[in-house]
């Protein structure tokens, strides 16, 4: 009770509504403060794209894991200890020299939480949801990804209960890197499919 309201900044309407809702639900015994804290803490510090990046890196160094990942994404994630809500049916789609994959959810913002965390604002935004299925080449170009005309583009709209993750191709010049070093190259955007892993000067052999 030390931080009095008198020196608090002006609260936004959403902030006030949320505080009011939390107060009501705590009083009614429907939530506990520490349970909400735990969710926030997990998604801020534990559950994020680093998990997916570790899976990708393992698939790059371990052909048997790659095979398992592509055959059953849910089981391959569980092997690493990842799973739960919004990851019960995980499917991994692999980029090849001929094919580039990307994911979207046109109806809401379905996203593989256990391996990528919560989605970024742009993924949930009308422009991405509307345009990614219709003009992916243009959208990818806006992300700085220019694909050769001959590359087939496959856009996965997660409209039912499957959640998708893209397995990017391992870049050349990374033979000297270990799994952790490889995971450093795999950004969230690579696993959504709006980017491909980049090898920067310092990393290349």
């Amino acid at each position: 009770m030390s931080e009095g309201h008198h020196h608090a900044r002006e609260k936004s309407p959403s902030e006030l509504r949320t505080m009011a809702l939390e107060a009501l639900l705590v009083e009614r015994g429907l939530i506990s403060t520490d349970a909400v804290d735990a969710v926030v803490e997990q998604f801020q510090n534990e559950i994020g794209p680093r998990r997916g990046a570790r899976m990708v890196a393992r698939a790059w160094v371990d052909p048997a894991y790659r095979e398992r990942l592509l055959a059953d994404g849910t089981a391959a994630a569980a092997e690493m200890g990842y799973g739960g809500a919004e990851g019960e049916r995980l499917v991994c789609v692999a980029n090849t020299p001929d094919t580039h994959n990307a994911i979207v959810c046109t109806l809401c913002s379905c996203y593989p939480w256990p391996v990528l965390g919560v989605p970024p604002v742009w993924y949930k935004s009308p422009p991405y949801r509307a345009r990614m299925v219709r003009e992916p080449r243009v959208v990818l170009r806006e992300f700085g990804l220019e694909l050769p005309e001959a590359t087939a583009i496959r856009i996965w709209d997660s409209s039912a209960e499957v959640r998708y993750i893209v397995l990017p191709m391992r870049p050349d010049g990374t033979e000297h890197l270990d799994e952790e070093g490889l995971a450093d190259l795999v950004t969230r955007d690579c696993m959504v499919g709006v980017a491909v892993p980049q090898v920067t000067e310092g990393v290349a052999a």
Partner: protein
Amino acid sequence: MDGIHDMGGMQGFGAVAPEPGEPAFHERWEGRVFGMSLTLWATGGPIGGMRSQLERIQPGRYLASSYYERWEHALEEMLAERGVLAPADVDRRIEGLRAGGRVPERSDPAMVEAVLADMQPRPPAEPEGGHRFAAGQPVRVRRISTAVHNRCPRYVRGVSGVVERLLAPDWLPENEDLGEQRRAPCYTVSFAASDLWPDDGADHTVLVDLWETYLEEAG
């Protein structure tokens, strides 16, 4: 429901705006909304599915709201529908907060355990067969027209595609609205962009996951 949420293929929204170094939650209250929702789901609390609630938001409000503003609004609606909140409860509480009231705190280790358990791998769902269509088979999406919650995007309705892969049967999205407990096989169906938007001149493929109830044989 043919709502504003069904955005695939719409035009005029402008450019996608990525934010470098984006945090999981931009403001504290966003994390609280997310955390409250997951806590209620993990403990079997008095809310339903978020998807069906979000698409009922009036289109103007939907577009003007941020993602977590929509979630917060949907939470209030669901709790009110189930009698947990009276219409003026939140507004009255806001007045209390403005007057210096605080959010009470409560600890419940069992609830913490429940939310953490919900973030752990689960035993694999038993795959079941019963699929009417086979991989490689041409199918057409039915022209669904209903106010009931469904997951059949407008941009594929009436369009033919090819079954890419069979997915395990799953609960129908319509169950909650209809008070039913039905499952149906699911499919990933592959569509050519040239069939979806014939005048665009695009050459990509769109893969959409659909319940069997949305599909018919392509004649």
